């Protein structure tokens, strides 16, 4: 154990926890951010729904009765329905008819639909008709898939309102990777994916910027409050000082990111009606390739850890070149675009579908890797994740080495970085 490490870690944590700025940042930040995000997402959901209404719907009418014709006509009022006859949903999917008509939703009106509805209107109220909806769900990219199914649902509700309450019920299924998954609601899946593909990048982004801010402050504070010089003359390993600062920041950043995640899940819950909860038990998400396996989560965690470490070490190095807290915070601010860019871009884009030169840029930025990893572990592309970890770890080692070198020499005291304003430090000659 490094001499002094624990003492320094405890002191750093004490200081951090007593700093009102950090508590405010941990509570106020999520509180402001999530309503704003909620508004944005609400808008995105709305426009996705509008799009879905314009989309083509494949209808397999195996009933061919009065009621099914009526229902199809009703559907046609709000969506563009193409009627298929003499087939089953299974065959239609297998024949690739959905791709052919550029549609993502298929509705089957099973035989007996009209008969059931007739009996219902004749007074047998417990008899109802069911339609089967199959929505194409693709994990990567189209996070709003499944809205077609949701739209059909709402059309059915409208139909019920016009005819009789609860006469038509909708049974939702998904088409995942060309296979029909009975009983799996695609819109539920997409809310889950939504939370994965947006929550994670944003959380990573916040955590990284936040941690860098704290680390920079903690070094700059020692300079601003003139405690660093004393600290550097006591018989403790300089590396322990560095690690004490980095570790305490990791702990606080970890707590902060949990707060952020909780806030974020809360927000998602309010959007999707807590849908994610009722799903996990009924289907095997891992087998479907929709969520990472335990191994995947482990890799993701490792990737996150090294990225965090590299960001912290970089913040420590950068803040060592400034004389006060404000300067240090401004200094690490120059790194933020490198964090924001991949986080924002990779929410919507898939790195493998980019031109090679752009891919190279994304892979070169260490802060892209946990986000790339979060997608790769879902698809099972562990090699990309592991290579990313190796790269970020190497990057971290280089930065940590630079940081420990800096702490070992007088540069930590004398290094100053000024933006062209020379002569500021010149003492008045007497």
């Amino acid at each position, binding site marked *: 154990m490094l001499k002094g490490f624990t*003492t320094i870690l405890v*002191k750093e944590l004490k*200081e951090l926890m*007593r700093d009102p700025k950090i508590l405010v940042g941990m509570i106020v930040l999520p509180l402001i951010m999530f309503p704003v995000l909620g508004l944005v997402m609400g808008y995105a959901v709305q426009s996705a729904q509008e799009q879905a209404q314009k989309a083509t719907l494949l209808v397999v009418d195996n009933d061919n009765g009065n009621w099914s014709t009526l229902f199809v006509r009703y559907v046609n009022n709000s969506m563009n329905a193409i009627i298929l006859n003499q087939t089953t949903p299974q065959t239609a999917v297998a024949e690739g008819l959905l791709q052919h008509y550029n549609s993502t939703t298929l509705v089957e009106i099973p035989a007996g639909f009209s008969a059931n509805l007739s009996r219902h209107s004749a007074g047998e109220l417990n008899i109802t008709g069911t339609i089967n909806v199959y929505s194409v769900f693709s994990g990567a990219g189209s996070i709003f898939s499944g809205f077609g199914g949701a739209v059909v649902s709402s059309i059915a509700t409208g139909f019920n309102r016009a005819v009789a309450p609860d006469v038509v019920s909708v049974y939702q299924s998904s088409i995942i990777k060309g296979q029909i998954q009975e009983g799996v609601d695609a819109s539920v899946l997409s809310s889950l994916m939504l939370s994965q593909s947006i929550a994670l990048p944003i959380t990573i982004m916040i955590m990284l910027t936040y941690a860098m801010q704290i680390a920079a402050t903690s070094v700059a504070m020692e300079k601003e409050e003139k405690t660093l010089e004393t600290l550097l*003359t*006591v018989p403790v390993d300089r590396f322990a000082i560095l690690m004490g600062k980095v570790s305490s920041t990791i702990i606080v950043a970890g707590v902060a990111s949990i707060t952020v995640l909780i806030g974020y899940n809360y927000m998602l819950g309010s959007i999707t009606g807590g849908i994610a909860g009722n799903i996990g038990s009924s289907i095997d998400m891992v087998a479907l390739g929709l969520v990472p396996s335990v191994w995947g989560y482990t890799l993701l965690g490792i990737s996150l850890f090294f990225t965090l470490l590299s960001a912290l070490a970089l913040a420590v190095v950068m803040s060592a070149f400034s004389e006060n807290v404000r300067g240090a915070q401004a200094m690490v601010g120059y790194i933020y675009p490198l964090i924001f860019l991949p986080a924002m871009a990779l929410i919507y884009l898939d790195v493998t579908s980019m031109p090679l030169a752009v891919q190279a840029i994304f892979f070169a930025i260490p802060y892209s890797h946990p986000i790339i990893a979060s997608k790769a572990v879902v698809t099972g592309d562990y090699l990309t994740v592991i290579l990313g970890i190796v790269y970020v770890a190497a990057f971290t080692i280089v930065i940590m080495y630079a940081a420990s070198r800096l702490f070992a*020499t007088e540069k930590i005291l004398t290094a100053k970085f000024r933006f062209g304003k020379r002569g500021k430090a010149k003492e008045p000659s*007497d």
Partner: protein
Amino acid sequence: MTLAVEASSLTKQFGQIKALDGVSFNINPGEIYGLIGPNGAGKTTTLRIICTLIKPTSGSINIFGQDATKQPEKTRQIISYLPEESGAYPNLTGWEYLEFMAKLQSTPETNIKAVIDEAAQICGLGDRLKDRAKTYSKGMKRRLLVARALMTRPKLAVLDEPASGLDVLHAYHIREIVKRYVKEHGVTVLLSSHNMLEVEYLCNRVALINKGKLVVEGEPKALKTRFNSENLEEVFAKVVGYA
């Protein structure tokens, strides 16, 4: 007998500025040695080199027989440094600050509690030690820091303007403590000061530094005689004026 401090031909270059230009002096164990000189003379730079914070551009520095440049870790175990500008962690209480520093300066045998109690005695802050350092006045902070520097009874205490910002009574109190520490605990003290009264009262020997060079050195009494002056202030004015 090993010298407490043996500085030979120290030079320090900061870019274009030559802060030190061949400074040599020796300090005996148990001595209180004072550095005086005008602003920018190189006092702080000298003390920082001795405390392993910066490395001399050339020259050598031995602390109790150890090369401070080559073995900074070992040197840090026997010294204690009070920087001229220094502070405490604003969000820690005075007591927590002392505890933190005591732990960092301790060996397994150290009785941390006793060390802190001693520091509490020296600084005389009483119950205010329970308050956070950001609520302290400048002088209170300084007293805390002086106490911190002395509490572990280092072999060599390096104090850069120890009494700066202290009121008359507390400056007096600190001087008494420095004297007592030297006498009772065999601490060697190297200090810098702008207060000639303080230097005359405390120091066994004084060195006057000007423009990075050690100009004169000697016992305060001897210097006064040599420059035919009433007090050290006059010596200072004459030497710096003529240099």
